[in-house]
């Protein structure tokens, strides 16, 4: 507020705000307004001549089995992929951070999966995990039975592997930046005090990484939703029930012209993500205090 006024009380517009205006207009026009308009569908029974039905769509959705299945699978996937991905990428980041030479080369190797197009990647995963793929070939040659990877609950673990393989590099780069920001003096002081590696990690490294941990967690949650692309390309709109995600439900509702269910599911998802992000930011603020 103060930036808008001079000491004499005259209104003066900050030039910085003017530069932000086109971007804000774009966000308003292409994100906020469509979202608000589509919110209306969540409270009507028909997108064209809709009658207001209050929370009926939400109640119906919470009794919809495919939606609940998608929600359960999505939450399970986030619950497994985000911690596992963060732990592995932190481990890799710490190893690279300790490496004396060729740090950039090692970092580059882990970043390569990020730049490979999903379509090409899918071809590779299918070659590995289809019924007559390489993995089953190895299992059979070892005298074991082949596994139907994409049509049994094992599909969830394949998708987990794909997610971690693709996103490990991204989180690793964030953690590397976080590790560089922890002053070396802290480690020196810990060494002088005779602190072990484990104690140093929990009392120096982790606290120093909290802002980055929060950011990485948020980005990992967002990226976990993007894994729908690979699942869709491998298994189509209706995969095995263990990997039927919320995005499958929403994508299918779009093609079924059921905009009420689509927007209702979107509302609930936005609410859940907002709560999660607010919780993480509160945790970070409490840590700072």
């Amino acid at each position: 507020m103060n930036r808008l006024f001079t000491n004499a009380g005259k209104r003066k517009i900050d030039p910085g705000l003017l530069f932000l205006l086109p971007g804000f207009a774009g966000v308003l026009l292409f994100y906020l307004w469509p979202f608000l308009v589509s919110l209306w569908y969540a409270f009507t029974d028909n997108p064209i001549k809709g009658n207001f039905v209050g929370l009926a769509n939400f109640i119906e959705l919470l009794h919809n089995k495919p939606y609940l299945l998608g929600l359960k699978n999505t939450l399970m996937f986030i619950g497994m992929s985000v911690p596992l991905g963060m732990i592995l990428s932190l481990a890799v980041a710490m190893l690279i951070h300790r490496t004396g030479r060729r740090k950039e080369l090692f970092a580059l190797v882990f970043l390569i999966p990020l730049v490979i197009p999903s379509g090409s990647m899918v071809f590779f995963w299918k070659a590995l995990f289809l019924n007559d793929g390489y993995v089953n070939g190895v299992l059979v040659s070892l005298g074991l039975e082949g596994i139907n990877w994409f049509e049994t609950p094992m599909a969830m673990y394949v998708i987990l592997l794909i997610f971690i393989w693709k996103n490990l590099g991204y989180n690793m780069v964030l953690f590397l930046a976080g590790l560089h920001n922890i002053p070396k003096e802290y480690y020196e002081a810990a060494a002088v005090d005779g602190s072990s590696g484990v104690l140093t990690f929990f009392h120096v490294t982790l606290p120093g990484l909290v802002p980055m941990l929060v950011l990485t967690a948020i980005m990992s949650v967002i990226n976990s939703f993007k894994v729908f692309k690979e699942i869709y390309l491998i298994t189509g709109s209706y995969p095995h029930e263990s990997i039927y995600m919320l995005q499958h439900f929403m994508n299918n509702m779009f093609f079924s012209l059921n905009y009420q269910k689509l927007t209702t599911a979107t509302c609930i998802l936005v609410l859940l993500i907002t709560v999660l992000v607010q919780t993480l930011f509160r945790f970070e603020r409490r840590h700072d205090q």
Partner: protein
Amino acid sequence: MKRRMALACSFALILSLAGCGQTKEASVEQILNEELSGEITVSCYDTLISKDFLEKAAKSFEEKNPGTKINVEAFGKMPEIKTSEGSNCKIAIATKEDDSQERTNYINKINTELMSGGGADVLSMDILPYYKYADSGLLEDMNAYMDADSSFDIGNYRENIIRAMEYHGGQYLLPLDYIFHYIAYDSSLFSDEEKIRLESGKAKITYEEIFDIAKDAFERKNANSAERVSMIGAFTNYMMLDEMMAPGYETYIDMENRQVNLMDGRFAALLESVRNYGELGYLQQSLELNHLDMNDIKKQREDQFFYKTKNQLSLTSEVLREAGLNNGKLNFGFGSAVGGDDSNDKALGPLTDGNKNAPFDYLQAYGINANSSNKALAWAFVKYLMSEEIQSDPQLMLVGLPINNAARIEQAETTITRSFLEESPGEGSVEDGELTETEKRTIDRYIEVVENFSDSLNYHPVQDDTVNNMIRSEVSHFFDGSKSAAEVAGVLQEKIELYLNE
């Protein structure tokens, strides 16, 4: 700042909601009383059959109703026409690779238009999922129009066909024509006892029964013959499965009531039966319908089959053969162009589920967009497409049987008299513009056969492209041996249930 942002968002929300109020809709009676004027758009995907028909009908309608304009939009690409000439005939085959992406693009285009409140006024339901539009209130229920319009008498049309196409009690599409399959058998390949068994059960034909009756004859014929005679012509495993599922489709997948029942063993048994038929040599697995040339067609027409699945167009040949014309070599209809030598064929009846369901399909059916701003003109045009004038016009190629009763009779007369005219000079030639007794008898017999078959048709289940693609994709694993029938049934049950319950 936060308060200003909140105010801005609330204002945007209120603004957007302001446009969402309902407008009062005109009643059907008011719509029917409106004068016909203005413009409408008719949209179709298919170009081979629908586009030309619609354009000619539109021109004719505009001439009869000055001040109106009918725009026809066709989305699909024209099929490739291949012609082949023989010594005494020329064959043109229209082929088009099934472009699923093009179909998906068209459906998405229509969905977007309809869901945004726009779209064509009249929609051809050639590939569109009309039941989804009906569920979303995007199509007019034409029962109200049919009841309120005094110029529309359902008695003038095949009422059983129209009523069988109701969905949840509403009439969301009106067919212009209908097609059906029937079974014919080659009487020269069966013993007298076997023929009696076939004829006695012809009212409720199923594939299982006819294959069972022909089992001994099949073994007898193929034991002594160097060249194998197939049980049934022009069928692969997938086509056989489609045919056998068709009469009882809803007992497997009931789209209207959102139920799927593939786990009671019948579907698995059906898959096993089809594979068994293929292994026994009953089916022609290697047929590539899109790549036939003149030699292939000539060979196919000379081949013998115990049974042929024909469509309604072949009834002309059956009746003409009964009347002693053509010896079955000429005047092949669309349905039997690749169906083998039918000089000894005898028609049995429409396929059923062994009980009461006799399925049919349509080539052209139209619905009215609920968002149309000119429903009066849209209804008038749909009615015009169903009128005797349009449906009996020989310039307009209606491939199926016309839904209009009078047009169907006229078409029958035209078809039979043309056949007589094409025959070599002799008995049956038209003289002095008057029909001969033979022609009259043949026409009456043809009409009798067509109407008897048509009377039994009563089944048109809602089928969904997504579900059919799932089935097609999954059963391929069974036919290539990588999965068992029970596994395929289990996977399909799960996937289709998920789809239906969404």
